[in-house]
């Protein structure tokens, strides 16, 4: 007798616990406002990406096409993956002095792990992370970027 009681009790327990769970799913079925799913490619315009999001390294230029990078290569030394290559050149200033200057700021996006250590190490705060995140391309070569714009110069010290 007891085993029959246990048998039906187990069936009752199974159905009641199933019903309890289904109640919750049903609750969300009739409350569509609580649903959090986003329709991603369609909501690109309203998508909120925080400012600090580490998308890719950029070298900001101002309106005179000037940047802050002195070519000290500290970011290159601090990068754990070798995704940064700074190419410098020797130039002669109008006063006749020899000076090292940034030639090309090469950034391999395909090697970057977005750890942010280059930004952390830069003494001039010349580079920063942008929050662009849609990086997929068809050609691998596109992922190697030169960040300084052609003809850009080092911003001279504040007068």
């Amino acid at each position, binding site marked *: 007798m007891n085993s029959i009681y246990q048998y039906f009790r187990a069936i009752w327990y199974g159905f009641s616990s*199933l019903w309890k769970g289904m109640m*919750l*799913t049903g609750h969300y079925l009739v409350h569509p406002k609580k649903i959090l799913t986003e329709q991603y490619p369609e909501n690109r315009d309203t998508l909120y990406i925080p400012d*600090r999001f580490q998308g890719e390294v950029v070298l900001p230029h101002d309106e005179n096409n000037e940047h802050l990078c002195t070519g000290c290569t500290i970011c290159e030394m*601090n990068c*754990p993956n070798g995704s940064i290559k700074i190419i410098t050149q020797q130039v002669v200033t109008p006063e006749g002095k020899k000076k090292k200057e940034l030639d090309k700021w090469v950034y391999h996006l395909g090697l970057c792990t977005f*750890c942010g250590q280059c930004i952390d190490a830069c003494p001039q705060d010349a580079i920063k992370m942008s929050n662009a995140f849609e990086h997929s391309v068809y050609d691998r070569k596109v992922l190697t970027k030169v960040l300084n714009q052609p003809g850009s110069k080092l911003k001279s010290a504040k007068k």
Partner: protein
Amino acid sequence: METKDIKRDEFVINVGPQHPSTHGVLRLELWLDGEDIIDSKPHLGYIHRGIEKMSEALGYKQFIYLTSRMDYLSAHMNNQACSLAIEKGLQVEAPPRAQVIRVLMAELSRLASHQLWWGALGLDLGAVSPFFYAFREREMILEIFEETCGSRLTMNYITPGGVVNDLHPDFVKKVKKLIEQLKGNLHEYDQLLTGNAILQARTRGVGKLTAEDAISLGCTGPVARASGVKCDVRKLHPYDGYDKVDFEEVLNDKGDNFARYWLRIAEMEQSIRIIEQLIDNIPEGSYREKLKGVVKLPAGEYYQRVETARGELGVYIVSDGKKEPYRVRFRTPNFSNLNALRPMLKGAKIGDMVSMMATLDLIIPDIDR
């Protein structure tokens, strides 16, 4: 095991490396007699990346980002362990503000980790909807991380001397909102899964791990605590001001699957308790002790242990005074917790294997490193 003769009804099957219930690339070799498991043997190394060896080629500040890739659900705690070990060598201490931020971040990631575990456990046992409910709150935590740290999973936020950035202005507001929502929603977890007849039948009394086994196999974290072993590093060897916050070390002496399930749910409540205590009391001041550009540890050995979401993580650094470590060794919790699988599986039915692995909460990249 290799020398064992196969009897007539015995056979060997391989579970994984592509089996969905192994949560990664773990291969289990199971010796079966019909449905009963005679013996098991895990095969590792499918996702070995050589993080320990790679660390020897990188500087002290640089190799920390690699540890986020070990146990990716406890990335903050892994970074914290390395930072604390390096701080030990440099004899500096993070400012009070940084310590509180670290504890807050660690507890938030513990919450996120346990939520993902809860969802994945439901998925393993055949219930799909818990996964979505778990991700609802986890998504909020990841958004908080994204705003303050810049990434969602592999943060690289905790650094020797403090934290990289100060907290985002919205941090306190968002965490309070999260806590409020989480407290309102925790009962849904019980309603949806805990009381469910299928979950009860598949977890209660299944996968028993005795306290003796847990100690001798080196299990830590929720796995050992569910067998009644006191092993919370936050209580035993407090770091970063865990001795100043008031929380309980949750223990259970049953040692079965349900004990581990119950314990993680209870641990989430304790994490909420820690966050509630700290969120209004973040001290003002500097968030980072400025270190030199190239950090050099004095020659010697440094060890630091930290409680991650899965157990005790130990970081052992040997320095010979150069700018790179001579040797870095990680004692990861999942590797030891995996050992518990063999005594649990012996004599069990093959259908219970999935629920045992689900409650062990294994992260395979942490086992292989």
